[in-house]
């Protein structure tokens, strides 16, 4: 039988704030366990929550970028359950009045643009992190109280590919807004995926399962594939899919049952009495929106406008740190395409993502700009450019490196003509090939001349002289 896959995605995303959602304790990044906690995070008797305004600001930003309608009155609720990673015995969340509702993002897919609706975005606090070792459990409360937003899509996604595109695009938007660092592998962005199948052409949803805590884009694809296979096998055999929570096991490439739906806890949600409803000032919301950072789609359009190919633009914007670098580079050179090429290939090959992100490289962007310009004007050859770049990566200056490497352009026409003469004499077949319309022959001859000149021939001038010489020989 033919099935259609129906997918909805819940994303938990840690907000990039200095302090926690409801306490003044610092948000921990790679800190010793249990050092970034205070009495509030540990749920000591008598503590009260104080809402982090920055977390609200970041949530407003995220809502705006995801086209969500912002609820001007912020309210919180308690979600009650007992678990050792939940110090208060309840989580403060927004069950009844999420800060954002009814938004969407548009995915650019091969078959065209597809709109994925977003049901809601709400704020909440993270739990502590548990480590299980043999018969012991260790709890790190550093994560307890970290600000989170949860973004829930409608069941509009129809394939693993769309799911990946959705998560990637959403993550990229949030990273551009500086709302989160978006590191899935470190758990600052986590995905739960709801999957069900239905017969093609039918309307009613099938029974869904939820695959929890996927920690990479590729695992999203694999988990969906595995779950679709499992569910269709069940349905084809005349069995039923049981509503359950599952997890993806990377080792066996299958999903594994965590708990069945029946016997789930009643979270007994009710309004949090210690946080009165807060009316957001419309002017404040507007000021957040007007100072919104450039979103990836806008940046993409700008790059296309600068003359980049769609492919180059995509590669750049999918890596915000790289794209930011590129934008800075453009302040120092007007050779946009060359600059993009250098960023995409040479820069990424030599600088780690972390260095790029932290701007901890020695390379001076303005010096790289001079290099690109030199290359663009053909003052230097691409071979020379690569040699110079190696030095620039160490933090050296462009002009100094040129001197140091003894790079001199040979622009003397008599010297160049002699070089061309000798190369042509050695490659008669290439001359014939060229005159028979084989353009590759020109490149070959240029290469030979550059080689002979040890890369020092002025490429633009050499090219011009070579063409003239070839024309002469045709006649």
């Amino acid at each position, binding site marked *: 039988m033919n099935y259609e896959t129906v997918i909805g995605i819940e994303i938990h995303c840690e907000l990039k704030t200095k302090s926690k959602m409801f306490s003044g304790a610092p948000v921990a990044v790679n800190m010793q366990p249990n050092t970034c906690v205070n009495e509030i995070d540990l749920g000591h008797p008598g503590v009260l929550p*104080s809402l982090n305004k920055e977390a609200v600001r970041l949530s407003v930003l995220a809502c705006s970028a995801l086209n969500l309608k912002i609820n001007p009155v912020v309210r919180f609720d308690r979600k009650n359950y007992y678990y050792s990673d939940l110090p208060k015995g309840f989580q403060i969340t927004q069950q009844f009045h999420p800060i954002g509702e009814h938004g969407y993002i548009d995915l650019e897919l091969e078959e065209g643009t597809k709109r994925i609706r977003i049901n809601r975005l709400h704020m909440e606090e993270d739990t502590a992190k548990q480590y299980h070792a043999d018969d012991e459990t260790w709890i790190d409360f550093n994560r307890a109280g970290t600000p989170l937003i949860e973004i829930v899509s409608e069941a509009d996604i129809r394939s693993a590919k769309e799911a990946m595109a959705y998560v990637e695009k959403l993550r990229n938007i949030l990273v551009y807004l500086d709302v989160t660092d978006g590191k899935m592998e470190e758990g600052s962005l986590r995905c739960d995926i709801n999957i069900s199948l239905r017969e093609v052409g039918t309307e009613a949803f099938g029974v869904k399962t939820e695959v929890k805590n996927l920690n990479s884009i590729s695992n999203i694809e694999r988990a969906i594939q595995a779950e679709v296979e499992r569910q269709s096998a069940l349905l084809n055999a005349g069995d039923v899919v049981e509503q359950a929570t599952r997890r993806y096991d990377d080792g066996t490439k299958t999903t594994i049952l965590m708990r069945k739906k029946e016997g789930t806890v009643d979270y007994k949600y009710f309004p949090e009495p210690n946080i*009165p409803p807060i009316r957001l000032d419309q002017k404040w919301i507007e000021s957040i929106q007007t100072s919104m950072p450039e979103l990836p789609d806008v940046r993409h359009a700008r790059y296309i406008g600068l003359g980049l190919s769609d492919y180059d633009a995509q590669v750049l914007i999918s890596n915000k740190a790289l794209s930011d670098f590129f934008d800075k580079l453009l302040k120092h050179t007007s050779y946009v395409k060359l600059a993009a090429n250098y960023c995409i290939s040479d820069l990424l090959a030599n600088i780690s993502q972390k260095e790029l992100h932290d701007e901890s490289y020695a390379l001076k962007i303005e010096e790289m700009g001079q290099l690109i310009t030199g290359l663009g004007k053909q003052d230097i050859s691409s071979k020379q450019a690569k040699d110079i770049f190696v030095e620039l990566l160490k933090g050296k200056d462009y002009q100094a490196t040129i001197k140091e490497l003894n790079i001199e352009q040979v622009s003397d026409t008599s010297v160049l003509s002699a070089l061309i003469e000798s190369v042509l004499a050695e490659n008669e077949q290439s001359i014939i090939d060229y005159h028979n319309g084989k353009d590759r022959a020109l490149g070959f001859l240029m290469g030979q001349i550059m080689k002979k000149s040890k890369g020092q021939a002025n490429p633009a001038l050499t090219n011009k002289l070579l063409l003239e010489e070839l024309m002469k020989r045709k006649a």
Partner: protein
Amino acid sequence: MDITKLKEMKSVQERVDEAVNKSHAYQADLNAMVSFIDPSEQIENLKHIDPQAPFYGVPVVLKDLVNMKGTVTTGSSGILENYVSPYDATITEKLRAAGAIIIGKSSCDTFGMGGTNMTAWTGPVMNPYDLTRMSGGSSGGSAVLVASGVVPMAIGTDTGDSIRKPASYNNIVGLKPTYGRISRYGVIPYASSLDHVGVFTRNVKDAALSLEVLAGRDDKDMTSSQLPVEAYAKLLNSDLEGKRIGIIQNVIDAIQNRETLNLFKDLCDQLTAKGALVQSIHLDEKLMHAFLPTYYIIANAEATANHANLDGLRFGVLHEGNSMEESMIRSRTAGFGKLLKKRFVIGSYALFTENQEEVFRKAQKVRRLIVEDLKRVLCEVDVVIAPASAQGAPKFDDVSIDQLSSEYLIAENYMALANFSGYPSITVPMGYVDGLPVGVNLTSAAFTEQLLLNVALAVEESTGIKDMIKEPKR
């Protein structure tokens, strides 16, 4: 003797020693203290405090729900029997900054959940006027420590009437200000939307002085008010000319005791003679019958969540099991009394998804109606007034109370009005019924503490009952 006088008459050492000695001497009879705090370090620290500070060297007691760094705070519970506070409540900081010397923690119903003080982990607290009678609760320990002359001021909390009822039973002043006037940060909760911090004193002026010290915005409590704190004590004025006082007629009608009614009538006559416009007002009787169930549903629902943090894992008494979950279950089973468990079950029931609309949400709607009704009345009068209890403190073995009678449902439980609404409310001594003290209660609109204290002062002047000390005698 009020606090200002006390500071003039006795040295810091004298007044602290006297309080500490009495607190120990009366412990066998009253059982009011849960823990004693050695005051020497605090006295030493006074050198950093301005001697003009309002509580400079004045001994006070905290209800055992109030955190004070480095001291045991049990909430009068079993599960927190060994809990040492790692932080100060905001009011603890404020008291110390004002020079107060905290000499100990007082007994209460576990986590403030009760009206008798009989659920305290350390046992019941005795009423100094008759040791066979109860102190009232939940702030019973604080009430009797003030009434018996141990300290001139003690901190209480009030979720239903937990300051104002024991004040009535113990012949003292009990003030619960507006919700948000005093920070709740660091005070172990019962029910967050109904909980208030307040004080017991032996006269209205000390209550005003205490409120000045404790009130004010606290960024750690989002429900605390930004409104500036007034100089309540300095601005006290008992002039009643033109003040409109409304007798809650429903309460009067529900009281059977003639003596109580006569005392109240005498008082109203005196207030009229002082120029007050005293009139009867009626609250919606049907709503008043719903006070107690509404209160129980909201309070217990919030309480069941508020105390979910007590699992023995991070603090408190741990009863280890074979798994984390089993340890939590064992610790909670051992650490809570029967009554508390009953309340948690009721609270959970009210919150279950299938019941929430019919029980919890309905109770919240009724609460809004009750507050609307009180607002309506407070448009016509400045203050509402009624006896704080129909008679004196009950005996420990009294089982005669009919919990479905109007006298119980209305006359004994109406003061929750001020918790539903968050409005300021004060109990002041009224007189004696069968030889036992009975207080009178006044409630006014939000943040009209000055008005409330002014009328309370007029009441105090009318009855002439102030600065009463009753040493416990067998």
